């Protein structure tokens, strides 16, 4: 069976390779950054186990390491690799030679992953099963490995070349690739320090309770604002719905809970489109696409998000109270 631990080791291998190539190129800051991350990924499961067993030292070391990563990234300790386009001619020639064959491995990542996910219940032999009970992550990892093998065959490259290319991309992505993890950690800190409860109480204090329209607008805006703070509509939904949706809209004004739930969540998604806190959707792609403005993706989707939020709140008001 492909255990999830193998997936973390594979990630650690890719990160470790980046550290190794940076070490050889004397980019010390980058080497330390990727080295720390490779260690966290390789030792992650034992760190969690130690924490559960009551030994807090390993997680505290990780906490200190997180501070080190932030300081490295924040004070210019990492160098973004300058893209040299010296091999542009070679890439053009290779593109002409290989043609549509280049598409195959790229499309194989999603196709193989999806196929593995769909077939997961059938890939068993007696007690042995290829994928564990929650197959999404192992299926993605296996899909990437299959695609990598095909890519090596199509481009006639050595396996070492694949790790060299991933290291090049990691140096280009730099710290942005870690930001989603860090933001998830911050969300956890916010939750544990009572930020969510405080926000819900503040919102509940300012909402006039006797107007269904005002409550609907307050719920929608609250979902957007709180999603923007947390970077995640999933974190905002329970807080806002327990604070406004359930007591005011559903219990007091008789709104349809299914409508409030679905449209409340989707209104929160409009907030996700607007916030740098949702780094994996908004900041990482800006770096991936080498945009000069790191808020470029947010700028491109802001108008859509605002128009859709207005639509959603209107839909919520008219659909939730259709039987009242």
């Amino acid at each position, binding site marked *: 069976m492909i255990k999830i631990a193998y997936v973390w080791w594979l*990630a650690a291998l890719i990160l470790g390779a980046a550290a190794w190539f940076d070490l050889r190129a004397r980019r010390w800051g980058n080497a330390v950054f990727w080295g720390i991350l490779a260690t*966290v990924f390789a030792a992650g499961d034992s760190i969690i186990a130690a*924490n559960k067993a009551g030994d807090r030292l390993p997680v*505290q070391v*990780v906490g200190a390491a*997180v*501070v080190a990563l*932030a300081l490295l*990234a*924040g004070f210019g300790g990492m160098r973004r690799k300058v893209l040299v386009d010296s091999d542009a001619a070679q*890439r053009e020639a*290779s*593109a002409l030679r290989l043609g*549509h064959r*280049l*598409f195959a491995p*790229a499309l194989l990542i*999603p196709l193989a992953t999806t196929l593995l*996910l769909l077939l997961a219940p059938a890939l068993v032999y007696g007690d042995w099963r290829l994928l564990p009970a929650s197959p999404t992550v192992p299926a993605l990892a296996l899909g990437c490995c299959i695609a*990598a093998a095909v*890519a090596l065959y199509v*481009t006639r490259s050595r396996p070492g070349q694949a790790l*060299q*290319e991933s290291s090049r991309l990691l140096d280009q992505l730099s*710290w942005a*690739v*870690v*930001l*989603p993890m*860090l933001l998830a*950690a*911050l*969300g*956890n*800190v*916010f939750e544990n*320090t*009572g*930020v969510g409860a405080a926000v819900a109480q503040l919102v509940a204090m300012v909402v006039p309770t006797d107007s269904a329209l005002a409550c609907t607008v307050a719920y929608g805006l609250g979902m957007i604002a709180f999603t923007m*703070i947390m970077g995640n509509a*999933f974190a905002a*939904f329970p807080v806002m719905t327990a604070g406004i949706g359930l007591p005011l809209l559903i219990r007091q004004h008789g709104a349809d*809970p*299914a*409508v409030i*739930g679905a*449209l409340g969540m989707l209104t929160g*998604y409009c907030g996700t*489109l607007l916030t740098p806190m949702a*780094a994996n959707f908004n900041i*990482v*792609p*800006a770096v*991936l*696409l080498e945009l000069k403005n790191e808020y*470029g993706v947010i700028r491109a*989707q802001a108008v*859509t998000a605002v128009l*859709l939020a207005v*639509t959603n709140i209107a839909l919520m008001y008219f659909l939730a109270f259709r039987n009242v």
Partner: protein
Amino acid sequence: MNYWPLLGVAAVVAGFALRLNPMLVVVAAGFVSGFAAGLSLPDLLALIGSAFVNARAPMLVILTLPVIGLLEHAGLREHAQRWIAGLYFMSLSLLLICYMALRQILGAFGLTSIGGHAQTVRPLIAPMAEAAARKTQPALDDEQRERTRALAAATDNVGLFFGEDVFVAFGAVLLIQTFYSSNGIALEPWAIAVWAIPTAFAAFLIHAVRIVVFQYGLRASAAAADGTERTP
């Protein structure tokens, strides 16, 4: 009620507004909220550390990098651009609207892992969009190129967000159902997912119109450039 941890939120807003490095902002905000809530330094480090280790999943995007890197090195982006440039009927709006529709429909069937910024946007959609934009505005300047690429990423986000909620086994639908059932309201997942359909259509319409407007802007700038060249 202790309202002081909200200072962490203020730190985030101020940090992003001042465009400080996001890594520093996030860690600083965590410390502000933690100390405001009265946590000691060892407790806070343990909280941040365990949250960080438990949040490894978003980093799995790096598993795709060896494949994408190899293919880019072998000219994938150049080939994608040449292919789109050679399709006479292809335009920027057709490309992006079709991609958004595909992402929404597949998402509605739960197939969200098809597509993504690292898997499809960087190696395929962004270079294709650039090639398609050059058909409308051959002299694409840096600002227009940047906006075209950003629009490709935004289209992926919109297609993903407003398609997946229609899928009954999607996490958001199950989260809503679980929240209600713990509050004594029993709902079937499909009864929740069905209300995501109007928004799915609205999102498609709004964003499709914006893509067409963007292409119209490119055409206008191309026409203006033509005009200035003709009149000395």
